[in-house]
């Protein structure tokens, strides 16, 4: 079974653009090959040996479990956090609805900073190598995580991707989450900050419609400000809505395509410009 060629169940695949090209070539030339499926079976097994008690004359037994459903994810997120702390890696998790401009912002950010700091990127999408191929062109290391049917990245995917990237110490890791304003808010990846991106074509009341994502983020980028003359979008009203759910948000207003407003954002991303 192979996820890359669509013959498998919709499980997660993690690969670099180079690997994807190699794999496509093997398929094109009919070369026999095996597939490396990252099966998620290396869990810390948390056997909870609670007290069990029998129920009357039936043969069933009740076992107390009392385990948080997100425990596994949260433990792995802690592990990622540990890696980031000890190796001084500044990790950002970019979240937004589809098409707000995450990949464009990443391309511009990477191009501006790559000569001063090491940067690596993890691209999360349900399918395709599109975004990883775009980042690959900028020359920095990138891994694509395809979540299949999944609508968010989880800590395990990031952990696997980090191992593929071999991040240098004192670098920046940018994680582009799957375009979805709901689900990524529930899964801690171990990142320093969630950065929520909203574009001016989306409607200024997004923050109160999807409050959790704005509450979980520490930074809000308002993108595509070059389009403000053409759309009905009140930047101040949008910020007010966002502050209702998160008074501590830091805002950047910019255009990833024209680069207007990019400098303040770049200052913030550079780890030196940060605490």
């Amino acid at each position, binding site marked *: 079974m192979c996820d890359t060629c669509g013959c498998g169940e919709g499980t997660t695949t993690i690969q670099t653009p180079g690997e994807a090209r190699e794999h496509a070539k093997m398929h094109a030339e009919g070369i026999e090959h095996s597939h490396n499926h990252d099966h998620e079976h290396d*869990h810390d*097994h*948390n*056997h*909870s*040996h*609670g007290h*069990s008690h029998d*129920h009357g004359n039936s*043969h*069933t*037994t*009740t*076992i*107390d*479990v*009392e*385990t*948080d*459903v*997100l*425990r*596994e*994810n949260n433990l792995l997120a802690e592990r990622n956090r540990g890696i980031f702390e000890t190796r001084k890696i500044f990790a950002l998790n970019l979240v937004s609805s589809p098409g707000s401009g995450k990949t464009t912002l990443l391309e511009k950010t990477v191009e501006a900073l790559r000569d001063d700091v090491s940067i690596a990127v993890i691209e999360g999408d349900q399918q395709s190598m599109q975004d990883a191929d775009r980042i690959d062109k900028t020359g920095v290391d990138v891994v694509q995580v395809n979540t299949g*049917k*999944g*609508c*968010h990245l*989880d800590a395990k995917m990031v952990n696997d991707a980090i191992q593929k990237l071999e991040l240098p110490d004192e670098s920046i890791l940018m994680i582009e989450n799957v375009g979805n304003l*709901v*689900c990524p*808010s*529930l*899964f801690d990846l171990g990142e320093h900050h969630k950065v929520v991106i909203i574009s001016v074509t989306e409607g200024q009341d997004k923050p*109160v419609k999807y*409050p*959790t994502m704005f*509450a979980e983020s520490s930074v809000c980028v308002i993108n595509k400000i070059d389009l403000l003359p053409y759309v009905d979008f009140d930047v101040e009203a949008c910020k007010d809505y966002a502050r*209702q*759910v998160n008074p501590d948000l830091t805002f950047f207003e910019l255009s990833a395509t024209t680069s207007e407003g990019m400098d303040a954002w770049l200052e913030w991303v550079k780890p030196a410009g940060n605490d």
Partner: protein
Amino acid sequence: MHEMSIATNILEIAEQSMDGHDQLLSISVEIGELAGIEFEALEFCFEALKQSSRYPDLTLDITRIPGKGNCRKCGVSVPMKERFAVCPECGGYTVEPSQGQELRVTSIEVE
């Protein structure tokens, strides 16, 4: 739809807790109404998941925990229907949830 990964996690936690038994009959979970879970979507995902599991007759027993919160400004305790509720007393978005964010497997029934 993170409900699919939540359903998968629930089944995994249950399987890891079976303590040598080989039949999993039911899983009891407690889920708060502010936990960001669509209850119907979760039930749907769980149904789909159990068909392909080793326990096609497995049942999921959900206890819903209603949302409650305290207003940080005026101190009142109020029921919460959503995570970012407006305080009925002072109109501020300062209600801090005190209950309703649970997402926990409480027990399983095995044979």
